[in-house]
């Protein structure tokens, strides 16, 4: 750690689709980087004292720009697919090609069609070609290695037949098993089994009626302690935790500021609440960011082009702050009444980008503008921070500063469900007004027990250091895996500490090819394309786990390398020098300064 006056550790290149907005003028205005750099120098003096040291740790996040040629080829790829889609639709229409999809009942042919034809064009003609890469059924614990049921399709993925064979020991790079608690042996399983025998599987009632078990109370008390908040409440489904509680917090006359890449559950919750929703650009920092952060450390390797373009973003007052300012100054549209309250919705780790929320800046903004902050830690709880307490601990912040701490038990805890933590008043209110508490069946007791045991393990309350080791192992695996992939020349999105690792594939044909080639090599990966990502940014996503051993990771990396060469996926133009153990010295620093 050393004072670092001008440099910036937040490496984010300006992405092709996300031009850096200048809040002073209006969104969409792009400044030349020279002008911005000058402004940066001017703005620095102003902010250096008040905002210095927002970050207590290096924050290295990169989204390398899509190479122009790749972008063009990707569009061409989609163009060809669309053309063929129309051709085949034409053939299907004239019954030249056999139709495989299910059809409407004869009796209901004269009803208004249930689907718009257009809606299904993509599914029918693009998704169907590579459908075998999703919903692969497994028949074992979703641990570091997993058994996959082999399936075949004789009609081009319209239907699957199970061959009865099982592909054993596939390396699992897809499950959100961050801390490796997805296990069928050990203390968690034993405890869950005991509770299952005692309580049964279901509950058959809601929390407010007669489904509030002593186990639930125990869990909530533990979750509150784990998070370092006054109280907490647990719900049966992570998705529903968002979609059924946001409407309890905000309503008409309130404003929701939502990150553009927020999960569907947050979007649904926001929509159901009836509040006005405004979207801000994903994770581009605020005016606070990067400016003279004294407590920062320069990344071990900085690519000059990235640094240059990132400096363009420095003083541009960013999306979120502008939205906040405008919201308070101008009030509600038409009526011009002031907003009742403003709620900012962000996630800890974004599951498709692998980025970590710039929480220190968001909290600074939230405090400055008296907004409330709703933090969804679905992927970050357990997976970030020295003791697994999530993104708040990762940045060394106070959980008190986050008004609503939300997260799920599905991922790091190997269970299911979600929670909300916060002040006692908040939880009291949710206990009386949460949709889940009133209308939805409460958490299954064995699932509750799994959460309790795994959480205690992370907290070290089981008398072992197992949990702590898992958290450390995950952090190590993450850094190692990300670094190696970058060295190989892949474009990897996101933060270097994020266990979600997106590897860019771009072209639609490569989505299917990558997924299949990897499975051939006994590695299960997740590939995603439109609509989960922007149309040209198809990607493969690896989720690291503490259960992955170095050997497993090395095998996976070797195969990824091979497939990467085969499919020509190594797009990156900022190759890292594979020498990261090299100690940081003055000269590197001086060089990268320019």
């Amino acid at each position: 750690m050393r004072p670092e006056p001008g440099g910036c550790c937040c490496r984010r290149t300006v992405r092709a689709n996300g031009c850096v907005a200048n809040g002073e003028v209006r969104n969409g205005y792009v400044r030349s980087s020279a002008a911005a750099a000058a402004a940066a120098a001017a703005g620095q003096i102003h902010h250096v004292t008040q905002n210095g040291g927002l970050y207590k740790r290096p924050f290295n996040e990169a989204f390398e720009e899509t190479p122009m040629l790749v972008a063009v080829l990707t569009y061409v790829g989609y163009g060809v697919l669309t053309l063929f889609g129309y051709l085949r639709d034409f053939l299907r229409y004239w019954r030249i090609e056999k139709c495989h999809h299910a059809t409407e009942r004869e009796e209901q042919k004269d009803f208004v069609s249930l689907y718009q034809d257009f809606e299904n064009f993509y599914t029918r003609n693009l998704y169907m070609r590579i459908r075998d890469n999703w919903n692969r059924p497994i028949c074992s614990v979703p641990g570091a290695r997993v058994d996959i049921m082999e399936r075949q399709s004789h009609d081009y993925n319209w239907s699957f037949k199970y061959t009865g064979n099982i592909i054993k020991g596939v390396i699992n790079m897809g499950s959100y098993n961050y801390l490796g608690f997805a296990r069928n042996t050990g203390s968690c399983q034993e405890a869950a089994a005991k509770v299952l025998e005692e309580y049964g599987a279901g509950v058959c009632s809601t929390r407010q009626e007669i489904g509030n078990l002593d186990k639930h109370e125990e869990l909530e008390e533990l979750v509150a302690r784990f998070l370092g908040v006054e109280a907490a409440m647990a719900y049966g489904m992570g998705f529903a935790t968002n979609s059924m509680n946001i409407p309890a917090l905000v309503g008409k006359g309130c404003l929701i500021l939502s990150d553009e890449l927020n999960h569907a559950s947050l979007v649904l919750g926001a929509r159901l609440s009836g509040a006005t929703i405004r979207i801000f650009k994903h994770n581009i920092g605020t005016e606070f960011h990067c400016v003279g952060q004294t407590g920062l450390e320069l990344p071990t390797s900085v690519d000059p082009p990235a640094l240059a373009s990132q400096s363009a973003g420095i003083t541009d007052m960013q999306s979120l702050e502008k939205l906040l300012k405008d919201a308070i100054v101008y009030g509600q549209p038409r009526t011009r009444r002031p907003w009742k309250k403003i709620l900012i919705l962000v996630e800890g780790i974004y599951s498709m980008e692998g980025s970590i929320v710039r929480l220190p800046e968001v909290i600074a903004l939230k405090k400055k503008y008296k907004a409330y902050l709703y933090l969804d830690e679905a992927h970050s709880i357990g997976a970030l921070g020295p003791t697994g307490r999530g993104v708040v601990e990762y940045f060394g912040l106070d959980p008190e500063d986050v008004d609503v701490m939300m997260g799920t038990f599905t991922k790091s805890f190997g269970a299911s469900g979600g929670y909300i933590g916060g002040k006692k008043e908040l939880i009291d209110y949710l206990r009386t007004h949460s949709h889940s508490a009133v209308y939805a069946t409460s958490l299954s007791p064995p699932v509750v027990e799994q959460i309790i045991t795994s959480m205690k393990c992370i907290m070290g309350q089981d008398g072992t250091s197992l949990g702590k080791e898992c958290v450390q192992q995950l952090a190590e695996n993450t850094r190692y895996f990300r670094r190696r992939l970058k060295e190989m020349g892949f474009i990897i999105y996101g933060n270097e500490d994020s266990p979600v690792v997106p590897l860019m594939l771009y072209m639609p044909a490569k989505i299917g090819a990558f997924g299949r080639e990897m499975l051939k090599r006994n590695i299960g990966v997740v590939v995603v394309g439109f609509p989960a990502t922007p149309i040209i940014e198809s990607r493969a996503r690896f989720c690291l786990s503490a259960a992955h051993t170095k050997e497993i990771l090395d095998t996976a990396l070797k195969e990824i390398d091979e497939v990467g060469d085969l499919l020509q996926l190594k797009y990156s133009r900022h190759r890292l020098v594979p020498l990261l153990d090299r100690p940081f010295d003055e000269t590197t620093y001086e060089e990268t300064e320019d």
Partner: protein
Amino acid sequence: MATATEQWVLVEMVQALYEAPAYHLILEGILILWIIRLLFSKTYKLQERSDLTVKEKEELIEEWQPEPLVPPVPKDHPALNYNIVSGPPSHKTVVNGKECINFASFNFLGLLDNPRVKYNSCTSIKAAALASLKKYGVGTCGPRGFYGTFDVHLDLEDRLAKFMKTEEAIIYSYGFATIASAIPAYSKRGDIVFVDRAACFAIQKGLQASRSDIKLFKHNDMADLERLLKEQEIEDQKNPRKARVTRRFIVVEGLYMNTGTICPLPELVKLKYKYKARIFLEESLSFGVLGEHGRGVTEHYGINIDDIDLISANMENALASIGGFCCGRSFVIDHQRLSGQGYCFSASLPPLLAAAAIEALNIMEENPGIFAVLKEKCGQIHKALQGISGLKVVGESLSPAFHLQLEESTGSREQDVRLLQEIVDQCMNRSIALTQARYLEKEEKCLPPPSIRVVVTVEQTEEELERAASTIKEVAQAVLL
């Protein structure tokens, strides 16, 4: 040459000036002067508004005080302090430290706690769940798309489809999310949904998420529904182009959670074909209850299940597990695998809960007699509860969950709730566990009157049913008179 032409034009212009009438010249002169005046006069301001200065903005920001995130909850809020159930919430359960007979959990078939080898089935539900737990662990660590599909899920979907005699079934990991995700998967902005006023909260949320036009009809009133459908038909004739792309849905419940009444399905099916609207049927309460084999309200009425476009139910009541499912024709159901939000974006159901549901289906299939037993018991307590002064029974006699409402409201909902709570508390003291039906009063579209919900299960013996009825009677008399 060019100059010659120009000159000629000039001459013509001068000539025209001579020939023009005087009034014309005066008018044009005035106009020219007017233009000059406009050009040189001070810029006219459209609005007297100037943009806020930075300082003013800062002041406004300084001034703004948001409402608190949540309003304070009064300490005596009726829903703040939950009952605490220690141990399994099964037939005999310990509520707030007192052992009671459970008349509150939706454990209709008693499948929740089934330690013995019952009903001739070789394994109990717990054993099946336990075996699954030992094989798969607890969580699935992923949504269905990303290695969260287990063989157990496929089995369960298969079994549910077979049980319901439909082409396909799809499972969700949360009962509430099932219908709430299914509706917006099909019904979009601009579509029209006809829905019963008494529809449960999950349906209301699904409709809200769909952003469709919602037309409420009076509870179980087919004439009212037909009136709305007719109105729509007339509307459609006016604008046939729009009508060709406007989907119409009728959303009803099999047994209504809020009223305990059964929907008139045969009439609904008739209306469906007459007005070409699709039927979505929510069967959380009727699945595993009505019909000879527990297939729900379609079996009860003997209606071809293909006439219903989509059936949804949760596995949290009769099946005593967690989660929900939708079933119907593949043409309809398969669409949810990409469009059902609660399906795509949520972690899948823990395998042990899926295994429990499979085992519950096994028991139901092997013991079709239990549905008749349940029906009989429902009838018994229904009868026994008639004629309590001050309380009326609301709901069908074949419904295992029905309501006791105040015959006459005191005029304030709060007071009503307090009275009913008093009855519930006193029954609890006398070892009968009951609960009020809870609602979010401000959120419900049509808030049902406060009520005590009585739930019948096959495990309750005749004696216990009698005892419950007499206890309620006595307590009600003491509290209400």
